[in-house]
């Protein structure tokens, strides 16, 4: 458990304090106050523009046009009413709100209105444009939508993680991460490292893309039914989703490394081609945006294979089998119990599938649909609660084929290539052991070295701003509300 870090909030931007009328000082349009009745229904009035087969107008344009007309309505409302609220909102005592995670069954899947969010932003991320994008694209929309915020700039690696150890979470209705998947990774791990992790992890999270490593944002964009877009368009869509306030539960991946380190992943674990970078250089500890550059071609030129052993528990096999006794970490009360995992020193349980030791090009465990804003890696459908996508590419694939697969992945058509070297299976747990020394893993884009790693999914464990899918079953209550279930030991086969 971390000691008390000398946490200083990232430089607090005075201009970021919620202003009385909810408007950014430099915002061009006259935005009405939150008390304007015209503002109340407008969010609901914005139609859910779902893409029919991805055709028709680009979504983001469509959406912006409607926001534009909403702006006009609000302006008209403001000038007509003419009156200012009597007191600036920021000086009022915070009124009691319905706790989002109300165990009694309150509005669990919706952020309150108005709401307060903490925005964590890495100013050096996304080619240094993150802060600028926040000001130009996010801030005005939050103001319109009664979302007040405080901006915290992160100064270095693990800063966000440390901030989460100390933060008084009751002050916020949601934590907004505007940076990349790496920052969300830090936030989630920071929350799980708190003594009150069981409630802390239920704090709603939101991912806003800021130019690098935006797989989460791209995935949420996809779940909402929007067209695949990038950059500012993606940012607009995700900001809109935050303003709409809907929440959906997401899976969390619990990982255990050979060293004993336990880490949580919100997105992915990659080994091999994707993760093989020069970890010596400090600036490359994080992968950044997954996309095609000259660098990727170079890696393709130097294509090598990675020897390893892979095993997994297929999702379809779980219902019919009682999970193995959780022999791991009985003393470790921090974090959920990984009921499917046995210690790394022991062989995997008998009901797991073992892939014979061989040469791989890559192995990827993925919790979401996208690996990057233009890498639609898991088109096979919305990740079912409790399952994640497992891909692996066996050695023998040619450079041409691999290149083709990555190109096809932009539109999610790589599975149609019928490449015999590419294998996909939905799983709930896996174990990966590199056999040529230590392996390089990328967890949510964070580079780690380990001899072996295993992990399992915890279904519907975190809450994120996202359109809930109508295809999902009604949400079960978060696991921490249920009494821990310890199954009887399985009879030896």
């Amino acid at each position, binding site marked *: 458990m971390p000691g008390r870090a000398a946490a200083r909030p990232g430089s607090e931007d005075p201009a970021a304090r919620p202003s009385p009328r909810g408007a950014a000082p430099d915002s061009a349009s006259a935005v009405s106050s939150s008390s304007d009745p015209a503002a109340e229904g407008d969010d609901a009035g914005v139609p859910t523009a779902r893409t029919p087969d991805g055709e028709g107008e680009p979504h983001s344009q469509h959406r912006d046009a409607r926001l534009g007309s909403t702006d006009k309505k609000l302006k008209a409302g403001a000038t007509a009413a003419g009156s200012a609220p009597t007191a600036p909102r920021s000086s009022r005592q915070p009124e009691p709100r319905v706790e989002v995670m109300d165990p009694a069954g309150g509005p669990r899947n919706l952020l309150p209105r108005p709401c307060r969010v903490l925005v964590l932003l890495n100013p050096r991320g996304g080619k240094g444009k993150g802060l600028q994008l926040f000001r130009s694209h996010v801030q005005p929309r939050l103001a319109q939508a009664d979302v007040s915020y405080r901006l915290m700039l992160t100064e270095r690696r693990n800063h966000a993680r440390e901030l989460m150890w100390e933060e008084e979470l009751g002050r916020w209705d949601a934590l907004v991460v505007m940076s990349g998947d790496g920052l969300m990774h830090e936030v989630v791990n920071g929350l799980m490292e708190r003594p009150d992790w069981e409630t802390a992890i239920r704090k709603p999270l939101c991912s806003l893309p800021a130019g690098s490593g935006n797989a989460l944002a791209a995935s949420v964009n996809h779940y909402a039914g929007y067209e695949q877009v990038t950059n500012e368009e993606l940012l607009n869509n995700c900001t809109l989703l935050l303003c709409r306030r809907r929440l959906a539960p997401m899976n969390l991946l619990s990982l255990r490394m050979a060293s004993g380190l336990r880490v949580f992943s919100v997105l992915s674990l990659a080994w091999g081609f994707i993760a093989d970078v*020069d970890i010596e250089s400090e600036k490359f500890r994080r992968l950044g945006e997954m996309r095609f*550059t000259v*660098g990727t*071609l170079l890696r393709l030129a130097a294509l090598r294979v990675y020897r390893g052993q892979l095993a997994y528990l297929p999702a379809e096999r779980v219902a019919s089998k009682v999970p193995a006794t959780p022999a791991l970490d009985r003393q470790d009360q921090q974090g959920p119990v990984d009921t499917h995992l046995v210690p790394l020193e022991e062989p995997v349980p008998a009901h797991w599938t073992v892939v014979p030791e061989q040469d791989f090009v890559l192995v990827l465990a993925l919790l979401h649909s996208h690996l990057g804003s233009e890498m639609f890696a898991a088109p096979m459908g919305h990740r079912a609660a409790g399952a994640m996508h497992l891909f692996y590419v066996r050695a023998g694939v040619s450079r*041409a084929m691999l290149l083709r697969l990555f*190109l096809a992945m932009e539109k999610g058509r790589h599975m149609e290539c019928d490449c015999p070297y590419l294998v996909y299976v939905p799983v709930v747990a896996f174990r990966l052991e590199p056999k040529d020394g230590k392996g390089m893993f990328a967890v949510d884009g964070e580079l780690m070295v380990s001899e072996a790693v295993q992990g399992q999914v915890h279904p519907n464990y975190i809450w994120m701003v996202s359109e809930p899918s109508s295809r999902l079953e009604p949400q079960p209550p978060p696991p921490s509300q249920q009494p821990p279930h310890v199954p009887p030991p399985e009879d030896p086969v």
Partner: protein
Amino acid sequence: MGGSGSRLSKELLAEYQDLTFLTKQEILLGPTGSPACARAHRRFCELLPLERRSMEESLQARVSLEQIFSLPELKANPFRERICRVFSTSPARDSLSFEDFLDLLSVFSDTATPDIKSHYAFRIFDFDDDGTLNREDLSQLVNCLTGEGEDTRLSASEMKQLIDNILEESDIDRDGTINLSEFQHVISRSPDFANSFKIVL
């Protein structure tokens, strides 16, 4: 290997040190305890006919590209032909002298700076030697990777998609080509470069 009369004299060693980026330390001792330069010399001599392996002859000799390609370190490298042409000083750029060979090795060694490496990488990828990487150069680059066979090359639309992606990422001034500084900029952000641009005998 080696033997009579093929050890480099101190004077020659000093001269080669000035010409290349291998430090004297490395030339004399090397990271594994053997002289990197002398090792290079031995490997070079192996490509020469027996009767031409004396010190004087070997320093004058030129080796054809095909022979250089036979070196295991280069055999699997998809860019071996461009690499050799860039370092060749013969008029037809079809052969390498020992000096050329040393230049090649020094650029690909651990001691060459990223700037030097990226500068040479640029020249290697500039197939038409016109000082920029245009769509045609990039296309040839990709074809080196995929192979030229009918069933392995990318289709025209795949190629276009790939090159569009690369230019989107690298072509800062949006002129449709990648110049040296744009190339060095994108390379500096790529962690793969150091690993891919390494040849150690």
